[in-house]
Structure formats: structure tokens, C-alpha cells
């Protein structure tokens, strides 16, 4: 009876891992070495062509653009999250928990709807420009979207809580006596931040980096809506290979490259002392 239970109970998870995680990824890996034919299918011929194509200047540019946007987004998220979490951490426990709930709350509503909210705000004749023009702060409307700025605003907005939450949880675990001791010894605020707070929160920081940087590369809908379809990011490129250009093997090769980048970031995170279980917790 006990062994039967063990057998039966371990079946679903085994099937799940096999069929819905391992198989798709192995298949994508396999696909990436196949030759695509001009009809949008593929022939079972081994080729490295798809990986060589990644080094074409045109596609390297797409990689560079995506990493640039993801990098800037991550940096901005860090710059907002650190002071925010430190300041919130100084409040009473009650206020802290209310504030953190308020951080999560908007993210329980639809992400597309929130992106649409930004479109209403950032348009040429949108709310921000209208207000600034009416108060004569600017003479010409600012270009706030349909460019990189729009994409970055959208990405920072959508991904900010994924930086705030892990960072907050590691900041709240810092023993305040460390900081007091440092203060007593005459350390400046900057020294305290860089010598004590940053090293103690490094795993939370990398958790945030991982949860911001990676999705940023793949969120094609934000660059579509706020970027005006002018900037091609890796997400858009993969989407195009699968849904319009019909070159699945090439799309698979880009995905594998993206997985490698993810793996690297996970390794860094693990090195920084992060636990896998802490990832992706809202």
C-alpha cells in the first residue's frame, strides 16, 4: 500500500516534468539544428546554419538592442528599488506590510491594461503633454512614446515589483545592529550602503536582476505598443520567426541563445548565495 501510494503520487510530477518541460525544450534544441525550407517547414538535415545566422550583423544588432533596453531597465529598477526599500524598511511593521501590499496590488490587474494606461498618458496629445503645455513648462509636445523612452517606461513599470519584492525581503532581514555599529564607528552613509547593505542584500539584488532582465527581453507586447513597431527586440524576432517568417529552426536557435544567457544569470545568482525557491515569488 505504501509503495503503491509513493509510486502513484510521484507519477503526475514525473509526467509533468517529462512532457511539459523537458520534451518541449529538447525538441526546440533539436529543431535549432534542422534546415528550414523556403515553404516554412523544415527538413531533417543537420545544419549549423541557424546558429551562424545569429552572427549576421542584422541579428547581432537585435541582440544588442534588446540587451541595451533590458540593461537600462534593470539599472533604473535598481536605482528606484534600493532607496524605496530602505525607506520603507524604516517604517513601523504595520505600515511596512500595508505599503508592500500596495506595491503588489496594481500587478494583480491586467498588464496590458496598465500598458494601455501609459499610452493614454504618454501620447503626443496625451495627459502628460497636455498638462505640461497648459502650464507652459514646455512649448513643443515631448516625444514620450513610439521610441526607446516609451519602451523603457513600460518595461520599468511592468517589472519594478520584481525588483522591489526580493530586495525588500533581503533588506528587512538585515540586523539593524550592524548598521548601528557602523554608525558608532563613524562610517558615512555611503560607506554603510556600499560596505554593509549591498553585500548583505546581494542575493536579493541578483534575484531582482534575474526577474527583470530576462522577461524584459521577451515582452514583445510592450515594444509593440509603446515602441511603435520601430525597434525589433529579441522577443519580436522570435515571435516573427514563429508566427510570420515561418522559420522555426532559426527561431529555435535564437531561443537557445536566450536560454544560455538565462543560465548564465542563474549561475551568477547561485554564486551570490541565492536560493532557487526565492525566485519569482510575488
Amino acid at each position, binding site marked *: 500500500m505504501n509503495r503503491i501510494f509513493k509510486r502513484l503520487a510521484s507519477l503526475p510530477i514525473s509526467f509533468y516534468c517529462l512532457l511539459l518541460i523537458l520534451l518541449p525544450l529538447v525538441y526546440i534544441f533539436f529543431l535549432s539544428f534542422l534546415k528550414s525550407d*523556403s*515553404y*516554412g*517547414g523544415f527538413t531533417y538535415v543537420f545544419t549549423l546554419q541557424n546558429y551562424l545566422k545569429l552572427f*549576421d550583423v*542584422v*541579428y547581432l544588432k*537585435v541582440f544588442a538592442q534588446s540587451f541595451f533596453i533590458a540593461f537600462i531597465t534593470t539599472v533604473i529598477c535598481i536605482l528606484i528599488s534600493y532607496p524605496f526599500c530602505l525607506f520603507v524598511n524604516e517604517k513601523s511593521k504595520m505600515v511596512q506590510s500595508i505599503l508592500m501590499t500596495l506595491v503588489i496590488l496594481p500587478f494583480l490587474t491586467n498588464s496590458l491594461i496598465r500598458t494601455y494606461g501609459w499610452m493614454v498618458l504618454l*501620447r*503626443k*496629445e496625451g495627459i502628460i503633454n497636455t498638462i505640461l503645455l497648459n502650464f507652459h513648462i514646455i512649448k513643443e509636445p515631448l*516625444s514620450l512614446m*513610439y521610441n526607446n523612452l516609451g519602451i523603457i517606461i513600460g518595461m520599468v513599470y511592468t517589472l519594478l515589483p520584481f525588483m522591489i519584492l526580493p530586495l525588500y525581503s533581503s533588506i528587512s532581514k538585515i540586523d539593524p545592529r550592524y548598521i548601528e555599529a557602523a554608525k558608532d564607528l563613524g562610517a558615512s552613509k555611503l560607506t554603510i550602503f556600499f560596505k554593509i547593505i549591498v553585500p548583505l542584500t546581494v542575493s536579493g539584488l541578483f534575484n531582482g536582476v534575474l526577474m527583470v532582465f530576462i522577461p524584459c527581453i521577451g515582452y514583445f507586447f510592450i515594444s509593440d505598443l509603446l515602441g*511603435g*513597431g*520601430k*525597434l*525589433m527586440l529579441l522577443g519580436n*524576432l522570435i515571435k516573427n520567426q*514563429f*508566427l*510570420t*517568417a*515561418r*522559420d522555426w529552426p532559426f527561431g529555435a536557435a535564437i531561443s537557445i541563445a536566450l536560454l544560455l544567457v538565462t543560465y548564465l544569470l542563474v549561475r551568477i545568482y547561485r554564486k551570490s548565495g541565492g536560493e532557487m525557491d526565492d525566485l519569482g515569488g510575488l
Partner: protein
Amino acid sequence: MKKIVCLLLLLFLVTGCSSNNENVLNVLNWSSYIPDEVIRAFEEETGIIVNYSTYSSNEELLAKISSAKTGTYDLIFPSDYMVELMIKRDLLEKMDTSLLENVSNLKEEYLGLEFDVNNEYSLPFLATTIVIAVNRDHVTDPISSYNDLLNEKFKNNIVLLDDQRIVIGMANQALGYSMNDVNATHLDNARDWLLTLKKNVKAFDSDSPKTFLITNEVDIGVMWNAEAALALQSNPNIEIIYPLENGALSLDNYAIVKGSKNTENAYKFIDYLLRADVMKTIIEEYPYINVNMETEKILDSSYLENPAANIPEEIIAKNEMVENIGSDISKYDRLWAEIK
């Protein structure tokens, strides 16, 4: 807790049933092409449930059709060159026009075109041409050809379609080539032309370029005629310009997907859309070029007097059509990634 579980199981059953529904029609069409009310009226009249999905380019349509299991979609609306390509790849079912009472409503000049000479696989639904729409509230410079759009004054002030064949074709025509040119040097020139134009482009959008004009986001748009017609309806100071170049005509067609399980319903829907009054409703909501003789007789002045809706015949006559260019499409794919 138990109640919740029961409720969920019930829901599960409901989904199981609804997916087995017999009387359905799976339509895959361009976004903003058939008004919701037309579909509802058809459903009420026939009891057929229409599952309606959309796409925004012929390439997307092809990808969807070739990757989905046969029988997933019944009725699609491919453009001219895509009909040809789909026939070649054996993706379309032959059409039996004898099942369509209203087929005689179609205008002669849109039948028997090169991509499907005997209309064995397709019948025309609507046609569309590319026009330039200019908001004269803000732009006074004369504009008559695509080349005029390169003017540095228009920085960040143009919206183009997010459609590689149309936009690259535009560049080709501006340089004096054919829209479907695949010559490598010509395409290099087209790329340079587009990179210059890109400085003036605010966005690429196929789904609703009119929005950009209506909200004053941009003052110039190169778009399908119906989009321009709708923009004109909301701002009378928009000028419609037929480009000096040959321009592009696109004819979208009814076609039944190979292996369709609901062909009978597909015919019913086509026949319904071929009715004069139904087509009138469609064309009034989305003012494309009408291909229905009977509809022509009952069109209102609002359509007939809109220069972006009622396109002069000589313009249509000189328009070029997008052609199937086979494997040279990869050159277009790369060029497209290059300018984005």
C-alpha cells in the same frame, strides 16, 4: 471547499461540451474587416456559431494555417499573391460556386485574375489600395509622391504600415522599380531609401494607422484606403493623396482551407456576405473598395463622396499587385530586420 470543487467540475464539463459543438464556423480574418454586428446577425439567422480570429498580415495567416492542425480553420481571407502561394502549396479547397446564390453579384473586373484564373479556389471579398493621408491642419507642403515623404521637415511625423511587402514595395516604386523587384542592387537602394525615410517614421502599424492621424500623433500616414477614409470622417481637414507612383492594389478573397470540417457553413457565410445589403453594412463601417455590383447601386453618398473610399477607376487600373516571389522572400525578411 466542496462547493468550489463541484463548481469547477461543472465548468470543466461545460468546456468539454462547448468544444464538441457541431454547428460552428472557424473564421480567420484580417483585424477590422467585418463588423461584429454582421457576424451576430448571421449567427442569429442560421444558428451557426462563428469562432472569429484575426491576423494582421498575409504571412501571419500563412504561418497560422500551415502550423495548425488541418481542420482548425474553415474560412480565410488571403490577398491575391497569398492565394496563389496557398494554391501551390495545396492549402486550399476547390470552391463550388454553384452553392452560392449571390455569386453573380460580383463585378466582372475582379474575377479571373492572374493569381486564380478560373476562380477555382477563391472569390473576391474586398479590394484596397494604398493612399497617403495628410493632415492639412499642420502640414502645408505639397505632397504627391512617396519621395516627397523624405522631406526632413516631416521628422517623426509619419505612420507606415507594418507590412514588409507593402513598405519595401513602396521604396521600390519610389526608386522607379517594380513593387516586386528582387534584384540585389535594387533592394540595396530600397534599403537606403527606407533608412532615410525611417527618420521621419514615428511608427509602423497595420492594425489601426488611422488612430495615429486622428489623435494628431502624426500628420502623415501611408495606409490602406479604408483607414484613411475613416480618418477623413473624423477630421475633414485630412487630404487624401493618390501617390504619383503606380501604387499598390490588394484584393482580399474568400478561400476555404483544405480539410475544413465545416465547408457547408463556410459557403453559407460567404453567400451571406455576398448579399448586397450585408456588404453595404460592411463597407460603411470599413470603407474599402467595393467589388459587389448590387451593393454599388445602394451605396450612400457618405461612401461615394469620400475620396479615400470611392477610388477613381484609373487609379485602380494603374495599381500594381504584390506577387508571390518564392524563396526570394528571405531577401525581404532580412531587409525588413535591417531597417527595424
